[in-house]
């Protein structure tokens, strides 16, 4: 993949010679987050409907992240004490950290998709949605078991 071998950022805009270090690549990614206007420096301006669809998908991911954050805050405030000490707090932290990860992934994926659209490339593939679905389902099952166990006491 050119983004790795040539040291380009995911937007393909920052090149400082071949074989840049991982730290500089990560720095380029973070710089792209704070300066998304750089995406307009690559490729050609696409049909605006594609960009708007990408924007709507990004916002849907942000709402997912906010829902996870809300779930974490509500778990910490409203769940009863569970049988395992600090499990309630651990559950809340997992939800909050997952929400944080989803928000950053949403931003990164939006930028990568925008770049791919502008360059006429295939959209980037990711296992993140499947991993998130498995994580949420597993968490819900664990919580259900714990709540049922707490109800039996």
């Amino acid at each position, binding site marked *: 993949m050119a983004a790795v071998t040539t040291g380009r950022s995911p937007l393909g805009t920052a090149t400082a010679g071949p074989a840049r270090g991982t730290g500089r690549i990560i720095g380029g990614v973070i710089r792209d*987050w704070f300066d*998304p*206007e750089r995406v307009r420096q690559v490729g050609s301006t696409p049909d605006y409907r594609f*960009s708007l669809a990408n924007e709507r998908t990004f916002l849907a991911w942000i709402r997912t992240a*906010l829902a996870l*954050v809300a779930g*974490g805050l509500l778990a*910490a405030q409203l769940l009863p004490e569970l049988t395992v000490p600090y499990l309630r707090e651990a559950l809340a932290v997992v939800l909050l950290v997952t*929400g944080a990860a989803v*928000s950053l992934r949403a931003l990164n994926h939006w930028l990568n998709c925008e770049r791919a659209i502008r360059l006429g490339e295939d959209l980037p593939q990711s296992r993140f949605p499947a991993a998130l679905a498995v994580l949420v389902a597993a968490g819900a099952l664990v919580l259900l078991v714990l709540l049922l166990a707490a109800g039996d006491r």
Partner: protein
Amino acid sequence: MSWVRTMLVVTLVGLLLGRSAVVLAPPAPAGVLAGAAAVAGWVVALVAGRRRVAALAVPVPPPVGSAASVVALVTFGYALVGVALVTAP
């Protein structure tokens, strides 16, 4: 409508974070800081969203620009403040 929906959810999470700052945090200064962060994030996200909604009210809207970054980073900040509140002694 997507931006309006998102701003509504940001408002809800901001309120929850403000409530958490009162319920979970020790009185001061952590609770005050968390409450201030909730309000500041809400205002910043609301302004960015409002500008984007206004920019979309034309036949060919401009690119999204920094509004997306602002909303994502506010969400990330809310999550970090939430972790700090939950793990506070």
